[in-house]
């Protein structure tokens, strides 16, 4: 997030949610947005193919077709430019590339965008005005925006909108991705990515590499590594022979699970470090028992870049070991000795190599934690990014054309399948399926079907139906609802026994981010 | 019979008019049916729990089905000293129900009420809000007969 979470409750005068079912997936953030609307009268725009809870409070609700995000943004920007609502001063002083962007946007009058998105032009116009005219507008998104073959384009369009209206660098504004997992921000910050070291220092940058080579006392590769999805494909092709998995479960989380399984089966060696014998761990050659968050010390970085302490409450279970100790032991045995006395000592090393964390230490993180960048020990942290200038200096507009999703519906697969999360479960369910209350409350997967579609197919609420895509099929219990587009069906991906990712597409990814298009699969729905 | 949707729609523009809507619904149904209450909550943009809280706060509103004729026996002090207890007993005996109940045929509901503001002629009962004055136990059978 460019801005902080509490601004969504206190400072934002207009909140635009696109591709985030906030109350289910980031409940506490959802509460804050709701309170802002109810208590302060903040305006709310919701764009989602499903009538999510917050849509009920929205001033404008846009139930747009999955995968048409760019058209929607361009349509809104068209209105903003043509109605003179753009922030000219901001554009002139803080941005570049406006002309090229405006040229493309000119091709998307609200009527054209409305046609592509399957919504009313009047609603696009209303949304554009609300967002542009409010004193401080914040746009929030989650995987609904990013899990597309055009995910990068979608995010860039989102940034265009914020730049166009000067909604960056001030309280209550910003481009705010809501990150789905407790430490996905931290994992990225720490360089658990194939192209960067910590703090996004490129592995291809000689200077950065030299710094890490010096610190670590080794020669490092300057070749970009494989993304997770590419690793699976390379394993399938036999080029990747060995895989180490630390607390992940690609056997449920990754697209096209039949493909994943075959790929893992082809490996010479699979090492899994986890707290449960997950679907992935079951395929391992060696399994190493780590510890849960309750058993460890350390730090997590949340979606607003706030680094906070994690504190050990109980001892390791049985013979399990701290994950950092396991990594040290393995590294040492691989011929690169690593030895630390505590997570704090590791953190001290991190700060020396990570400019945005340089000013932090455990003592400073004790209370509220600190949002990065925090370059020095006397620096208070940075709740709002891009206040004076952008990282690259001027904010860059991108001229982006709408592209169709990779899979378009046809006669054989006439319905769009989209996937996501429930309030009651988390990711691949390895934890929540073993939490008694949560699993009792929501013990099985369902597929949400619009009542008109259900009627047409003679499907009643609660019956078991079959969903098929080009990758495979699964059987699911039908949940007949009104709040979803008529030719869109939705299911959760938490359930290994009815795994949504059997259906999803691993072949076509976003060309930049390598993200799979979980939000759009062409599917067929059958009554059994 | 008017539809509760229409009734609610007709009150919708009165700010805070949910109680007015409840009155109008009761005029038609003698109580507030569950679906009508839920619809009223939606129309007046309050939670269902709040609408329910309002409906159960006021003693003239009911969320339980009631009879065609709602007989209320006033038991406030002026009616009390004028013999309300005896009238109540007569009502209960003649209707075959206790206060708070509805006759099997769905015709009468008997309720207790506090002062109805007709204290010039106590004891008072009201039948669908129409007051009947100076009621004596022996008047009860004839009174009820008028509504059969």
């Amino acid at each position, binding site marked *: 997030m460019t801005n902080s979470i509490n601004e969504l409750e206190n400072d934002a005068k207009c909140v635009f949610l696109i591709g985030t079912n906030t109350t289910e997936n980031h409940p506490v953030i959802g*509460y804050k947005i709701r309170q802002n609307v109810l208590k302060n009268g903040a305006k709310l725009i919701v764009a989602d193919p499903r009538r999510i809870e917050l849509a009920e409070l929205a001033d404008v609700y846009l139930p747009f077709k999955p995968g048409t995000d760019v058209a929607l943004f361009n349509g809104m920007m068209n209105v903003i430019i043509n109605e003179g609502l753009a922030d000219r001063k901001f554009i002139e002083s803080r941005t570049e590339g406006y002309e090229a962007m405006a040229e493309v946007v000119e091709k998307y009058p609200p009527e054209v965008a409305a046609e592509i998105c399957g919504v009313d032009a009047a609603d696009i116009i209303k949304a554009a005005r609300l967002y542009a005219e409010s004193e401080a507008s914040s746009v929030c998104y989650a995987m609904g925006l990013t899990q597309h073959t055009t995910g990068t384009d979608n995010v860039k369009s989102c940034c265009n909108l914020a730049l166009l209206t000067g909604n960056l660098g001030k309280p209550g504004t910003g481009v705010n991705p809501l990150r789905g997992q407790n430490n996905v921000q931290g994992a990225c*910050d720490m360089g658990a990515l194939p192209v960067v070291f910590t703090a996004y220092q490129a592995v291809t940058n000689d200077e950065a590499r030299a710094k890490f080579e010096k610190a670590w006392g080794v020669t490092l*590769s300057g070749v970009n590594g494989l*993304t*997770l999805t590419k690793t699976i494909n390379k394993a399938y092709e036999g080029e990747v022979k060995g895989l180490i998995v630390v607390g992940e479960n690609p056997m449920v989380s990754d697209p096209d699970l039949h493909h994943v399984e075959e790929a893992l089966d082809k490996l010479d060696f699979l090492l899994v470090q986890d707290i449960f014998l997950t679907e992935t761990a079951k395929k391992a050659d060696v399994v190493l028992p780590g510890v849960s968050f309750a058993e460890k010390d350390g730090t997590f970085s949340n979606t607003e870049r706030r680094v906070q302490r994690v504190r050990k409450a109980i001892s390791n279970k049985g013979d399990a070991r701290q994950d950092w100790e396991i990594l040290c032991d393995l590294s040492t045995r691989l011929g690169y000795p690593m030895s630390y006395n505590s997570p704090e000592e590791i953190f001290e090393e991190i700060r020396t190599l990570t400019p945005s964390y340089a000013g932090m230490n455990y003592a400073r993180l004790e209370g509220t934690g600190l949002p990065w960048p925090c370059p020095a020990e006397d620096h208070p942290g940075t709740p709002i990014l891009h206040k004076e200038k952008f990282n690259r200096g001027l904010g860059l507009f991108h001229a982006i054309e709408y592209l169709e999703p990779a899979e378009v519906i046809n006669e054989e697969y006439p319905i769009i399948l989209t996937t996501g999360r429930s*309030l009651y479960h988390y990711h691949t369910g390895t934890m929540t399926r073993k939490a008694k209350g949560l699993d009792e409350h929501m013990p099985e997967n369902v597929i949400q079907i619009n009542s008109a579609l259900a009627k047409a197919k003679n499907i009643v609420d609660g019956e078991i139906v079959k969903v098929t895509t080009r990758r495979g099929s699964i059987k699911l219990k039908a949940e007949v609802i009104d709040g979803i587009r008529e030719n869109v069906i939705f299911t959760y991906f938490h359930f290994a026994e009815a795994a949504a990712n059997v259906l999803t597409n691993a072949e076509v990814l976003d060309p930049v981010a390598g993200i799979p298009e979980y939000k759009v699969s062409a599917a067929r729905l059958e009554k059994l | 019979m008017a539809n509760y949707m229409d009734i609610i729609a007709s009150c919708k523009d009165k700010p805070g008019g949910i109680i007015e809507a409840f009155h109008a619904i009761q005029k038609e149904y003698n109580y507030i049916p569950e679906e009508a209450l839920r619809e009223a909550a939606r129309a007046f943009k309050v939670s269902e729990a709040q609408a329910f809280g309002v409906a159960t706060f006021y003693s003239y509103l009911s969320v339980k089905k009631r009879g065609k004729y709602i007989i209320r026996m006033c038991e406030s002090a002026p009616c009390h000293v004028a013999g309300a207890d005896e009238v109540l007993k007569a009502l209960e005996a003649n209707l075959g129900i206790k206060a708070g109940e509805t006759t099997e045929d769905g015709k009468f509901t008997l309720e207790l009420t506090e002062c109805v503001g007709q204290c010039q002629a106590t004891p008072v009962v009201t039948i669908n809000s129409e007051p009947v004055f100076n009621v004596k136990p022996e008047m009860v059978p004839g009174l009820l007969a008028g509504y059969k």
Partner: protein
Amino acid sequence: MDIKLTINGKEIEVPQGTMLLDACRKAGADIPTFCYDPDLKLAGSCRMCVVQPQGWRNLVASCVTPAQNGMVIDTESPDVVEARKVVLELMLTRHKLTCHTCEKDGDCNLQDYCYRYGVTESRFEGKIHNLFKDDSNPFIERDYDKCVMCTRCVRACEEITGARAINVMDRGYHAHIATAFDGELEDSPCVFCGQCIMVCPVGALTSKIAAGKGKPAQNEKVLTTCTYCGTGCTLELNVKNDEIVGVTSNRDAEWSPVNKGALCVKGRFGWDFVNSPERLTTPLIKENGEFRPASWDEALDLAAEKINGIKEKYGPDSLSMFSSARVTNEENYLAQKLMRAAIGSNNVDHCARL
């Protein structure tokens, strides 16, 4: 503009608009409260916080009465003490006294204040309401026979979470907390965030997941960051005998900067996976398609041997690592360091995109 007033003989200055409760607390007076909650709209209804302004006929609820210049306040006058005792006794007549089995035993305002004012029993007779509801949801126990009608749950549901699942139904002595049509939480807009449990001053609302596992006084609380979504809520793990027995939250923004104590159903009720008997407790090695327990040395040696073997045979880029969006920064750092420094490849990623 500041105003001056005297509280228990002590003169203090407070800004205009300060409520007496805050002024009294500033002057060091310990004012008991039930319905007052600094994060919620004022109710002024429990009347436990009454104080005596000199020269006034009635007592005033300090939580909703603005301090006035020149006021002379007694916070423990005989009338105040009598009122508080009677309020407590009135509450006791509707509160089912099962302290010995109550989850809130030792952390209950009613208990504390009865102790403070020496209220051992109520002078009033009468029966409790019998409002206990066997609500079938797996998270929240609702025992309204312990409810003291402070309505903090109703306000928290509306003003923190915004679910608006509950309200007060009926009136007078019969008033109680209910969902629409007095049904179960499952059939209401409840999202099981448990904010109602967080604010309940007595044992009317408690966690079914934590039930029977440990009383508040027996538990140690460890403040940490939630393991679920990326919001980064702060919560307290309740520990007894080296086991997690519950989750509570800290409402001080200094310790709970993101969520100020508010949690969701997963954060408040989804912690018991930690105690699952399915947790891995020993390294495993697969032999002939079956896992067998192994020692750490054996498992690590085997892993190192296999990894080094592949590296030697096919080069470092034939190895890859998935680190985790769920482990700590420190562990992610070591993971990528291991991949890059020990193996020599940049093939490290995690499920940021999934």
